[in-house]
C-alpha cells in the first residue's frame, strides 16, 4: 500500500489568484492522478500526472488552467490558475503501484471567494 499526503489540507482564496497543491507518496508508484470532487458528487478525473513529461488531461480540463508537474516517482503538484468561485471543490491526489488499486490522499478543500 501507499500513504499519500497533500498540502494544503484546505485554503480560502480570492478570485483571480492561483493555488498549488502538493502531493507526496511514501513509496515509488507507477501512476499518479488528480481528481476533483464536488460535495455529493462523483470523482472527476482532471489528469494523469506523467513523470518527466506533460500530464494527460481529460476532456474539459486544460493545461493552462490546471498545470501539473511530476518531477519524480513520489511527488506531484497541481496548480489551479486564475481561480473563480466555480473552482471551489475538493481536489484529490491518487496513486497506483503494481496493482489496480488506487490510494488517495486526504484531499485539499478549496474555497474561492
Amino acid at each position, binding site marked *: 500500500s501507499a500513504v499519500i499526503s497533500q498540502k494544503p489540507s484546505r485554503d480560502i482564496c480570492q478570485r483571480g489568484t492561483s493555488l498549488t497543491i502538493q502531493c507526496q507518496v511514501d513509496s515509488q508508484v507507477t501512476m499518479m492522478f488528480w481528481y476533483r470532487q464536488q460535495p455529493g458528487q462523483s470523482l472527476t478525473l482532471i489528469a494523469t500526472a506523467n513523470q518527466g513529461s506533460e500530464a494527460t488531461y481529460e476532456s474539459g480540463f486544460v493545461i493552462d488552467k490546471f498545470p501539473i508537474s511530476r518531477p519524480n516517482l513520489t511527488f506531484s503538484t497541481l496548480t489551479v490558475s486564475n481561480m473563480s468561485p466555480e473552482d471551489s471543490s475538493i481536489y484529490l491526489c491518487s496513486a497506483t503501484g503494481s496493482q489496480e*488499486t488506487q490510494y*488517495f490522499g*486526504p484531499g485539499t478543500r478549496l474555497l474561492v471567494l
Partner: protein
Amino acid sequence: SQKIEQNSEALNIQEGKTATLTCNYTNYSPAYLQWYRQDPGRGPVFLLLIRENEKEKRKERLKVTFDTTLKQSLFHITASQPADSATYLCALDDPGGFKTIFGAGTRLFVKA
C-alpha cells in the same frame, strides 16, 4: 461512454442487519470492479476488487458479487455497525487506458 449508477438515496439500516448496495454499469463489461469507502472530508479508501471471471469475493464482513450478464455488482456488509456509516463508491477500469471511473456513491447510515 461508460456510466455507473449507484443509488443516490441514502440507505438507512439497523445495527446488526446486512447492508446491500448496488452498482450498475451501462456499457462495456469491465475487466474488474472495485469498491471504495469514503468518509466525510477524507479521500476514498480501497476495500475490494473483483475481476470479471470471479462471481464473488469476501473480506471479513464484506462480500462483493459481480454479474456481467446483469451488468451489476452487489456490495454486502454483514452484521453492520454504526462505524460502517460512510459513502461507498463503485469504480470500474477504463479499457482505453489506466484510468478508473467512479460512481457517485451511496451513503450508508447504520443506526445503533
